[in-house]
């Protein structure tokens, strides 16, 4: 499985994951495209590089961001979104920790998926979600209500 890490993830994490999960390939976007790549070019870059999964981070405004993920999924590529707990810095260590710790879980999700899918990953684990589910979950978090079961 080939994972493409969006520019919002550290290039150092891609190098670390190559060692930590040698059965997969983790490539950073800056290794295959220029800085500040436009959103409409991302699906084509994934296709051209035979990437199976786009890895991204979402900290704010998922409602706007989801359209990028939808376009990638509609091109047949899985999306893995890292999500943080409140006040959690999204630094190098957090990114590397999440990707390495949950590797068995998300790799299984994508291996078993019959079609391109969206998976959300946080400290508590990996979940395969629909866009509607993740939007409701974020709305619940922002309003202070407990997360949906």
């Amino acid at each position, binding site marked *: 499985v080939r994972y493409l890490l969006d520019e*919002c993830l550290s290039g150092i994490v891609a190098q670390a994951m190559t060692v930590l999960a040698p059965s997969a390939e983790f490539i950073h*976007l800056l290794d295959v495209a220029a800085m500040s*790549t436009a959103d409409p070019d991302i699906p084509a870059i994934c296709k051209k590089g035979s990437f199976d999964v786009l890895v991204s981070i979402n900290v704010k*405004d998922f409602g*706007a*961001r989801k359209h990028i993920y939808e376009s990638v999924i509609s091109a047949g590529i899985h999306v893995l979104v890292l999500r943080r707990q409140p006040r959690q810095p999204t*630094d190098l260590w957090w990114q590397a920790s999440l990707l390495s710790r949950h590797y068995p879980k998300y790799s299984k999700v994508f291996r078993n998926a019959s079609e391109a899918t969206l998976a959300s990953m946080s400290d508590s684990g990996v979940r395969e979600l629909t866009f509607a589910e993740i939007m409701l979950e974020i709305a619940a978090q922002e309003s202070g209500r407990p997360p949906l079961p």
Partner: protein
Amino acid sequence: VTCAAKGAEVVDRHLIVLSDGIYTVSQVCRILGPKMTPRRVHYWVDTGLISGEPITRGGKGTPTLLSFRQLLEIKTVQHLRDEIKVPLHSVRTAYAWILDNVFERELPVTFTRGVGGEIIAETPDGENAVIPWGQRAIPANVNELTDEVRTARQAWLDKRLQLKANVVADARVLAGTPTVIGTRIETALVATFAPGDEFDEEVVASVLQTYPHLTQEAVIDALEFEGLHRIA
């Protein structure tokens, strides 16, 4: 793939909105500063002051989404209301003139103050017009309006709004969310490195450790754009 049929033409909705920028109302308020509130944005959109329909109208689990053009329009109307003090009942006609000439005809317009206090708009082809302003005494510096409208026009042509020296909202990058210039790293992501409302050298160093291709100045600009204060 979700497609929307428009007559005989089938349009891939994703590709259109991706290059046009996509903004939630809260994001518009974050970009335009503390004077802009969700209530104002919704009012201007709902009453038709801002042109076009939102990308989506808000509902359960669905936020109201606006385009890059609508962000620029809201920014211009905000300037007319808050800085030039155009009354609400007059802003519609004044803004309609700017919309038609600046956004549609893409003319570089210069505003000057007339002898009677009115605002005169000059276009390069000599089509001077007195903008219906609703009042004859203009309290603000009209040059600021020229600068504001030119900024909006240039941002419209470039599809990119400069927010700070190293922070931009590029309609084609991360759906137009504010990012560090020349990257796909959003300022909100950089702000998570600071534990509270302040940041110091240690926070900047942590960001640079994670993203070595950024400059120190760019990181500081991103943190300050997110409202964080620098401490020694």
